[in-house]
């Protein structure tokens, strides 16, 4: 009696076990069969609303071109790529929540995006914890530093140290050594000022004042008489988006340009369009990309043409182009790695040398910073061929690892 009972139990256990194995195994079998149709999902959190919305929208437009490129070329083993755009509202908390949703709920394979020093750090923290590859397309120095960095962290955009350094090396010898900074009081502004001052030190540049204004301020007139009285050779506007538009416009009204050269670390295409030719006339700055480079760089021409075709003749902006390169690099690495696993794709990205739109680029081994050229442009108000023709390209500083902070300084043990 007892024996039969045990046997029965054993049979039950076996049956149950087989059933469980079948049920558990089914999704795998199903998944393998369906793999050809599962898209490769790229989460794309950017601030679609808020002060940088114009730039963010262009990032989305350009990223979609990279997706289209990849899909038109056949995708990866029949799998197409898909962009999942989310609004992070320029808020680090919101960015973290959206990223978490993208990873946990939407099951994205990778994250590309962000447009602020602060949101990219919070997105990076979420991706790092969940071992999902993140390629940031916004400026930041902190993201290169060892404490925030991980093997899954990549930085497609320029950083303040490189950008401000390039502008400083170009402008300080030409326009003078007495400098005033008008700085947005947050990480981006502070990092830019630090970049200028470090490059300026070697050139004997003197800081007359570093005036801090709150981010998103509408009126700068209250700072301008003091700047006038200081009589600087150069006024550096270390702010971004609408802040740059407002401060450039008001500085122009106050006649600062009569005796002072105004420069901006990042002279945005979108800000110039929003501010108009008069406010920006003669202002000089750095940028990662300007569509007018297409005369000299074939890759730029190819990218511009694709963008023009998709968006009714419009040209891509600087930050937009970063959206393109950020997504395209990751998808190329998927092909090179023959995998969609973040770690394998990361290894492939580290080996990638690419020329998507602006000339040769590669990710430095120790911090995954994209080593790339910096373009120095000047805004023009005369002899413009059409509404897209807003800058003269004055100079292009070629990619050079020596213009980055060293791996040791950033706290990375592995050197290049």
């Amino acid at each position, binding site marked *: 009696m007892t024996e039969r009972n045990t046997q029965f139990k054993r049979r039950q256990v076996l049956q149950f076990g087989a059933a469980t194995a079948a049920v558990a195994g089914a999704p795998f079998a199903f998944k393998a069969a369906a793999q050809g149709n599962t898209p490769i999902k790229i989460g794309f959190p950017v601030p679609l609303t808020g002060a940088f919305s114009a730039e963010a929208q262009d990032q989305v437009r350009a990223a979609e071109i990279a997706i289209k490129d990849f899909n038109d070329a056949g995708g990866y083993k029949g799998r197409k790529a898909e962009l999942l755009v989310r609004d992070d509202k320029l808020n680090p908390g919101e960015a973290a929540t959206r990223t978490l949703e993208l990873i946990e709920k939407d099951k994205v394979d990778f994250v590309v995006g962000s447009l602020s020093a602060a949101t990219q750090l919070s997105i990076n923290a979420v991706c790092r914890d969940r071992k999902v590859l993140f390629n940031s397309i916004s400026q930041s120095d902190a993201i290169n530093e060892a404490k925030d960095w991980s093997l899954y962290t990549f930085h497609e955009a320029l950083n303040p140290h490189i950008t401000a350094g390039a502008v400083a090396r170009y402008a300080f010898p030409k326009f003078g050594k007495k400098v005033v900074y008008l700085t947005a009081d947050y990480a981006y502004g502070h990092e830019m000022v630090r970049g200028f001052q470090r490059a300026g030190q070697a050139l004997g540049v003197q800081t007359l004042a570093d005036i801090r204004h709150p981010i998103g301020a509408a009126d700068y007139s209250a700072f301008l008489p003091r700047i006038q009285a200081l009589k600087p050779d150069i006024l550096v506007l270390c702010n971004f988006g609408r802040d740059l538009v407002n401060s450039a416009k008001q500085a122009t009204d106050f006649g600062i340009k009569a005796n002072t050269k105004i420069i901006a670390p990042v002279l945005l295409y979108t800000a110039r369009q*929003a501010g108009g030719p008069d406010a920006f006339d003669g202002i000089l700055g750095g940028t990662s990309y300007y569509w007018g480079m297409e005369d000299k760089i074939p890759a730029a021409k190819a990218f511009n043409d694709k963008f023009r075709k998709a968006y009714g003749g419009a040209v891509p902006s600087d930050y937009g182009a970063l959206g393109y390169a950020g997504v395209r690099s990751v998808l190329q690495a998927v092909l090179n790695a023959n995998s969609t696993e973040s770690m394998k794709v990361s290894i492939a990205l580290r080996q990638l040398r690419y020329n998507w739109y602006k000339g040769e680029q590669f990710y430095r081994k120790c911090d995954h910073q994209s080593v790339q050229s910096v373009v120095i442009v000047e805004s023009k108000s005369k002899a413009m061929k059409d509404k897209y023709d807003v800058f003269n390209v004055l100079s292009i500083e070629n990619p050079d690892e020596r213009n980055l902070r060293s791996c040791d300084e950033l706290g990375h043990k592995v050197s290049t």
Partner: protein
Amino acid sequence: MLDISPQLFALQLMTGIALGAIYALLAIGLSLIFGMLTVVNFAHGAFFMVGAFLGVHFLGITGNFWFSLLLVPLATGAIGLVCERFLVRPLYGRGIDYPLLLTFGLSYVLIDVMRFAFGIEGLPSSTPAALRGSVSLGFGHFPLYRLFLIGATAAIVLALWLFIEKTRYGLIIRAGSRDPEIVRVLGIDISRVWLLVFGIGTAIAGLSGLLAAPTRAVNPEMGIPILAESFVVTVVGGMGSLPGAVVAGLLVGIVFAMTSLVAPEYAELSIFVLMAVVLLIRPQGFFGKAGLMS
């Protein structure tokens, strides 16, 4: 390290007055509507923004700044009339928080309407050609447009004062704010007076948006921070007081400018500190009557 020359001080003072002119104009509209209708108009910043957008838009079409100077207040005033008649009027007599919440919601509607109409990036606005450049005031160069801003504000304030103090209609408005019951008994349709006052208030808000547009970026969110600052001005000047709005507007502008000179980091904070101090010493503001809110 910072030495402030008399020239710099004078120039900074002018900057403060120009800033204060915009605050004063906005606060006048707010005070007018609050003083007469006891409506705290949270959509005032949105009307300011709509005025700026329409101004730049009309300027693009007509190419004439002076023409849009006339057109914009008419347009924003008309929007104000419609809002009063169909949205605010049903809420009279229901307590102060009903119209407050309604106008708060209205401001978001107006912001989104402008986003739909003109895009989220906003419009580029430039200074009208005749008012570009800077002029020498003897102690330094000052932008011509900001001088014009001060002059235009003075003219608007004067015109409004003449209208309210010297005309028959102004008399009715003043009487209506003192005792609406008696005015009604005298056979005057008080609801039409309120309609007009709301219209004038929003027209001035639109006009100040137009005037401010060349000095800043025109975007759908531009009315949000300035609304908070305008409330500071009305609180400092006294809720519902027109002279209070002008005096406090200029004072807030000057305090902001002077703090920017010595401690730029605290400029934003300084005007709220000013408000706190005034509230502690004189809770009803400079010219306000105690107990208006109750």
